[in-house]
């Protein structure tokens, strides 16, 4: 819906000097945070600014954290794991199955976003390169899965749904701000390595995603899911 609305607005912006001027007048901080550079009036520039810098990652992260917190911490909180884990199943298999479910939900979301953007690009003439779009959507997926698996790691350590949502949400918010502002606020610059958003980059459609960045985020996600499995394997299940 949101993507349709945004892309439908695009033709009226495309090539419009007034809009360029309006964007020019934005404070630099905002422009940097939202990944807006001079070419907001091109298709890729527009989508980077409107969708890929915030909206799509935000949705993917919401989805992934929600799914992870619901299936592990939520079920444990509600006492539903008591019976399931009394069955012949390893704890770590249970965690990995939940991890796979989170990744699958994010993948479905990404495929849907991809299909929608391809269709909209054709209708509204956004002039997207399919290869770039695949990478950009995959990068969004990686951000989602990383934060979802971080939620699993928290749930693996403590049986708390609130923390399993709160911690990764805080990490996402901090990562977003650091990734968006580190160039402007010098004191944030040294912290850029902890931001998954920084590793992915602000303009995946125009400039692509760095291979290193993708590997770092994927590795961090794997570390999270492994930590979730190990921690959950060792600790006491919460008394229902």
């Amino acid at each position: 819906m949101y993507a349709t609305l945004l892309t439908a607005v695009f033709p009226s912006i495309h090539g419009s000097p007034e809009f360029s001027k309006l964007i020019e007048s934005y404070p630099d901080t905002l422009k940097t945070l939202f990944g807006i550079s001079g070419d907001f009036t091109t298709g890729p520039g527009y989508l980077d600014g409107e969708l890929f810098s915030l909206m799509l990652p935000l949705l993917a992260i919401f989805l992934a954290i929600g799914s992870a917190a619901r299936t592990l911490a939520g079920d444990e909180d509600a006492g539903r794991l008591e019976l399931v884990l009394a069955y012949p199943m390893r704890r770590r298999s249970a965690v990995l199955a939940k991890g796979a479910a989170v990744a699958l939900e994010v993948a479905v979301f990404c495929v849907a976003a991809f299909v929608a953007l391809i269709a909209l690009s054709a209708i509204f003439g956004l002039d997207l390169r399919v290869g770039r779009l695949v990478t950009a959507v995959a990068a969004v997926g990686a951000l989602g899965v990383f934060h979802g698996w971080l939620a699993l790691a928290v749930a693996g350590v403590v049986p708390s749904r609130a923390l399993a949502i709160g911690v990764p949400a805080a990490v996402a918010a901090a990562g977003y701000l650091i990734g968006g502002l580190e160039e402007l606020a010098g004191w944030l610059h040294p912290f850029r390595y902890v931001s998954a958003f920084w590793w992915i980059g602000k303009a995946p459609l125009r400039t692509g995603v760095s291979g290193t960045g993708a590997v770092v985020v994927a590795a961090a996600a794997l570390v999270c899911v492994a930590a979730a499995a190990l921690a959950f394997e060792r600790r006491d299940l919460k008394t229902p």
Partner: protein
Amino acid sequence: MAEAPAIEMTGLSKTYRGGVVALSGLDLRLERGEVLGYLGPNGAGKSTTLRLLLDLIRPSAGGARILGLDVRANGVEVRKRVGYVPGDLRLFDRLTGGEQLDSLARLRGSSDTKLRSELCSRFDVALDRPIRELSKGNRQKLGLVQAFMHRPEVLVLDEPTTGLDPLLQEEFRRLLRETVDDGRAVFLSSHSLDEVQHVADRVAIIRSGRLVDVDSVESLREHALRRVTIHFADTADATPFAALPGVQVDAVDGTMLRLSVPEAAMDGVVKAAAGSPIVDLVSEPADLEEIFLERYREVDDGH
């Protein structure tokens, strides 16, 4: 080679974070073909013990074996052969009873539904309605079915008849008897002696995380005092009864006499009563609840 016992706990202890000692040094053995009642008031450490056996929580010291296998090291193998009813059963509310049982059966990788449908019709389980619409008793029935439906060799049951009506409780006792006649074993926790005394071979009593006593139900009964009430034709005289060993005179009221009598002294009481004309004599077996309380008093006095 001798068969390993169904359950063997050695020095099993659990101290929760924050220093709460839930169980200390439990040594207990359950043979195949036996129902062991596990009794204690709420908070005594019963659920802690059962959850340790299923590796849901981990012991602070000691350990347990089920069918000869360590419950920590061989947890998956152990849990294949065990059926469990949690003390506080929580199911997936959106599923129907049937879907819940299907999903649990898949976790065991078992496709045999014959026993399951037998159990469901036996306990009249509601399979088509979402679990959130079911009463406590109907949920509990699902809990029982899932514990028995793979014909486990050992059953670990935490207050399993909670919410069941008396007829189904009776049916459940029959199921337990069939299970042990089959050479399988049942570890049955309860806070009510009444629930256990008709079905258990032995009873283990636990309090504040310590094993107080393990005894056969028979022997508990033998040590128990009978409540004897005698109505005489004339005024009752307590003197000959008070002289009998172990007999306690509880009340004398006109023609009525009330005594507490150990099994061994019954003969003497009847013979002493036969000295005068009797209208009525009633002997009530002591409720295990009283024995239970008596044991607790002894332990308390020991402190």
